[in-house]
C-alpha cells in the first residue's frame, strides 16, 4: 500500500490535454501487470489518482497516459523528465487478452475494440497484444475510435502502426474541422460496416459510460453475444484493494472487481440506474 517511487524518464504530449509518462522504478524490478489494470499514481504533495496502464507487459518502462482534468492529473501531466512519481499497483481486472510470452492461447474470434476519447489509453496495450497475436494467426482485430474532434485523437502513430500490421482501424469525430476528410458521427456508426463477424466476435469497450452503454447495445443488436462484451468502468478509486468502498457500483467494488467487467447481466442493468 506504500507508493513506490518511480522516475519520469520520458514525457510525450499526445494532445493538448493528454500526456503520456514513461516511468522507471527507483528501486527493484518493474512491476508485472496485465492490460486493462490500473495504478494509483501520486503527484508528490498534491494527491493520488487512479490511472490505467497504457503500455503492454514486456515493455521496459511503465506507461501511463493521463488526461488533465483536475489538480492531481494536471500536476502529473506537468511532470518533467527526472521528476518522481509515486506508484501503487497494479490493481483490478484486465481485458483477458493473451500476452505474447505468457503461454496462453490467443483468441481465434474477431475482437472489436471500441474506444471513445482517452478511453483508448487503457486499451492500447491490449490492442498491441491483439495485433501481435493476429500476425501469428489469431483472430482479426477491429479498432474503432471516436473522438470529439480530430485534434483529440490519441496515439495516432499506434493507430497507423496497427493498421499497417493488419488491424482494421476506423476513426470518427463528433465535430469535423476543415482539414478532416474522415468520418463524422458517433462511434456506433462505425460498427455496421466494420466487417467483423458478429456471431464470432468479442468486444472490448472503453470510453464515457454512456458511449459504452449504447455501443454495447448496438453490438448486441448486430448479433454479438453479450457475454463476449467487456467494458471498463471507473468510479472514485481510492484504496485500490476493495477496502474503502468509494468505488462501489452495486455489489462490485470496481478497484478490485473491475475496472474491466463483463457487460452482460447485472452490469448492463446497473449502468442504466441512477447513482444515489
Amino acid at each position, binding site marked *: 500500500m506504500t507508493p513506490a517511487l518511480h522516475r519520469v524518464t520520458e514525457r510525450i504530449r499526445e494532445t493538448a490535454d493528454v500526456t503520456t509518462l514513461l516511468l522507471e522504478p527507483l528501486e527493484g524490478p518493474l512491476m508485472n501487470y496485465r492490460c486493462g489494470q490500473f495504478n494509483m499514481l501520486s503527484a508528490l504533495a498534491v*494527491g*493520488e*489518482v*487512479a490511472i490505467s496502464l497504457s503500455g503492454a507487459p514486456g515493455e521496459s518502462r511503465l506507461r501511463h497516459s493521463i*488526461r488533465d*482534468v*483536475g*489538480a*492531481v*492529473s494536471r500536476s502529473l501531466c506537468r511532470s518533467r523528465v527526472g521528476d518522481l512519481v509515486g506508484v501503487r499497483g497494479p490493481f483490478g481486472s484486465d481485458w483477458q487478452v493473451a500476452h505474447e510470452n505468457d503461454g496462453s492461447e490467443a483468441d481465434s474470434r474477431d475482437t472489436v475494440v471500441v474506444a*471513445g*476519447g*482517452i478511453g483508448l489509453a487503457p486499451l492500447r496495450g491490449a490492442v498491441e497484444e491483439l495485433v501481435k497475436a493476429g500476425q501469428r494467426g489469431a483472430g482479426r482485430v477491429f479498432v474503432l475510435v*471516436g*473522438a*470529439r474532434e480530430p485534434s*483529440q485523437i490519441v496515439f495516432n502513430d499506434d493507430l497507423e502502426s496497427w493498421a499497417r500490421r493488419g488491424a482494421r482501424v476506423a476513426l*470518427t469525430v*463528433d465535430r*469535423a474541422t*476543415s482539414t*478532416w*476528410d*474522415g*468520418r*463524422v*458521427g*458517433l462511434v*456506433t*456508426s462505425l460498427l*455496421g*460496416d466494420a466487417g467483423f463477424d458478429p456471431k464470432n466476435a468479442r468486444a472490448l469497450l472503453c*470510453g*464515457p459510460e*454512456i*458511449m459504452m452503454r*449504447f455501443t454495447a447495445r448496438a453490438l448486441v443488436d448486430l448479433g454479438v453475444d453479450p457475454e463476449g462484451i467487456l467494458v471498463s468502468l471507473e468510479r472514485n478509486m481510492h484504496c485500490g484493494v476493495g477496502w474503502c468502498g468509494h468505488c462501489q457500483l452495486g455489489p462490485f467494488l470496481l478497484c478490485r472487481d473491475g475496472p474491466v467487467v463483463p457487460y452482460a447481466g447485472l452490469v448492463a442493468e446497473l449502468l442504466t440506474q441512477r447513482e444515489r
Partner: protein
Amino acid sequence: MSTTMRELVASHPFTSGMQEGTLELIAGCSTNVVFAPGEMLCAEGASADTFYLLRRGRVSIDVHAPGQGTVIIETAGPGDVVGWSWLVPPYQWTFDARAMDPVGCIAVDGACLRTKALDDPSLGFALLSRVSVTLLSRLQATRMRLLDLYGDQRGH
C-alpha cells in the same frame, strides 16, 4: 449475368424483410447511379424528390456556415440512407450531401413512391417503418453527440 434493379434494391439493408411486391415497386422507381468525389447528391433548398441507398463510398452531410465555410455534420456510408426530405412538405433539401469518395448508390424517386404509396397503404407503411428506424437511429446519435461525451470532464 447482370444484376437486376430488383436484386440491387433487395440487397440493401433498408429493404431487409420487405415483401416481394414492395421490392418490385421500389425497384420500379429506382436507378443505379454513381457520383465522383466532390459531386453533390443534393443541395440545400433544392427540390427533394429523391433519396439514396448507399452501396459504396462515403457521403458527407454538410451545410455552409458564414465565416466557417462548409461544415460537415455527419457522414454516411455503405448501407446508409441519405435523404428523407422527399417524405414531408415542402419537399426541399435542408442540407447538402456530397460524395467524399467514388460513391455508388441506388437513387430512388421519392415523388414516384409518394404517389404509389397513396394508392397502396402497405407500401406507405413499409416505407415509413423503415425511414422511422433510420430517423430514430440518427436522432439518438445526434442526442448523444449533443452530450459532448468526450468534452471537458472534471476529476482528480
